């Protein structure tokens, strides 16, 4: 357990401001399945981009396939727009090792050659194992490696953070 209380709705407000600053007139949002996809959908509506929103999954490019197997198959990539020349802003709930970002960038390039790819996250919990950085993080904190932080979506659409011990 952690005595740190993360108010996911307040962090979402921060994320929305940060994402608004990163947006250009032709930026498209792509949420990383699953938490990031929820965030990207809500951001896309709240910021009234008028553009379709994408979802991307790391499943087919994960580097721990050998140990963990295929995992959730409902995690399908859906990018309903041209990737060649696009300005992509990836959205995720939490960044830690950076391995998911490496995998989804590879996944993205299977669909084309974007003009640029940036990343905005709700929480940067440190512990990077790859040279990956977010252009915006609503919160930065340090958690023990045994704790897993993940976003949950309530039936009414509100976000909460769940912290689980994974020992």
């Amino acid at each position, binding site marked *: 357990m952690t005595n740190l209380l993360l108010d996911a709705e307040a962090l979402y407000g921060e994320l929305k401001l940060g994402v608004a600053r990163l947006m250009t007139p032709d930026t498209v949002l792509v949420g990383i399945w699953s938490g990031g996809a929820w965030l990207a959908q809500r951001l896309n509506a709240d910021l009234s981009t008028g553009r379709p929103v994408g979802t991307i999954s790391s499943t087919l490019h994960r580097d721990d396939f050998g140990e963990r197997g295929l995992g959730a198959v409902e995690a399908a990539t859906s990018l309903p727009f041209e990737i060649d020349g696009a300005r992509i802003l990836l959205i995720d709930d939490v960044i830690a090792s950076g391995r998911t970002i490496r995998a989804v960038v590879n996944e993205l*390039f299977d*669909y084309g050659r974007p003009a640029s790819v940036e990343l905005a996250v709700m929480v940067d919990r440190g512990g990077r194992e790859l040279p990956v950085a977010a252009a915006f993080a609503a919160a930065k904190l340090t958690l023990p490696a045994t704790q897993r932080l993940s976003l949950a979506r309530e039936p009414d659409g509100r976000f909460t953070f769940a912290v689980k011990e994974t020992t």
Partner: protein
Amino acid sequence: MLARRNPQLNAHGELIHLLSIEGLPRAILTQILDTAGTFLSVNDRDVKKVPLLRGKSVFNLFFENSTRTRTTFEIAAKRLSADVINLDIAKSSASKGESLLDTIANLSAMHADMFVVRHSESGAPYLIAKHCAPHVHVVNAGDGRHAHPTQGLLDMYTIRHYKKSFNELTVAIVGDIVHSRVARSDIHALTTLGVPEIRAVGPKTLVPGDLRDMDVRVCHDMKEGVKGADVVIMLRLQNERMSGAMLPSAGEYFKSYGLTEEVLARAKPDAIVMHPGPINRGVEIDSRVADGAHSVILPQVTFGIAVRMAVMSILAGNDA
């Protein structure tokens, strides 16, 4: 010792070999079909390749000829980035007198990670799975009259794609059922997935009565067998397997059991017509039906690649 564990599953109940659909739980069949759906979308990408089997070697061991099945396994393995080695064993070691297990031992020494096996003897893939190294996975690509599980799974994928669910379907399997490993795999899969009515349709010489033990309705009249069906699965008349006079002639067979537009009109208006291929036009199926609006024979081939990708990637992710 009937209570022994299914040799296709590890201690956690995960799939490590695909040898037969018989005895696999519904959850595993559904997992394969769901995963295949993900892989179908790989066709829409600029790069039609994913790296899940990168660095793995898949050996296609075809002791019996099959261009189509071997090719779709090869495409599936290549889309997963595996290295594929095709061995036309019918023409090599076996004809020089090497035993099956010696062949496997040699190929294992070449660092195989997966064997895709077709053999004219029922049970050959089981024997290989039993004797290969623990990290090696075996996929049955058709053994004798026994099973052809990936064909069964791609048929299930096709049915689910067009009919959405299995719970209320009537499925008619028509033709040479006694020689058909496809029919056997389909029947097991349809039963496990909850299809309430499965019919086996054909002449007495080709439709064994003991199918009734598998909860299948045996029907020797074509029109009655197709009546009200949601799905009609036609089987190829396997001339090369037939020994002795089981049928008067191909023309006679077509008259009684060929699928024509007239016969198909007795099925449901939105019925789909399937066939594992290769089709014999004018023997078991009329060209107007094979090329008609109800036919999903070519989509079956496309789905087959995605289903084989799903099977290989699920196996590769599970340890013995």
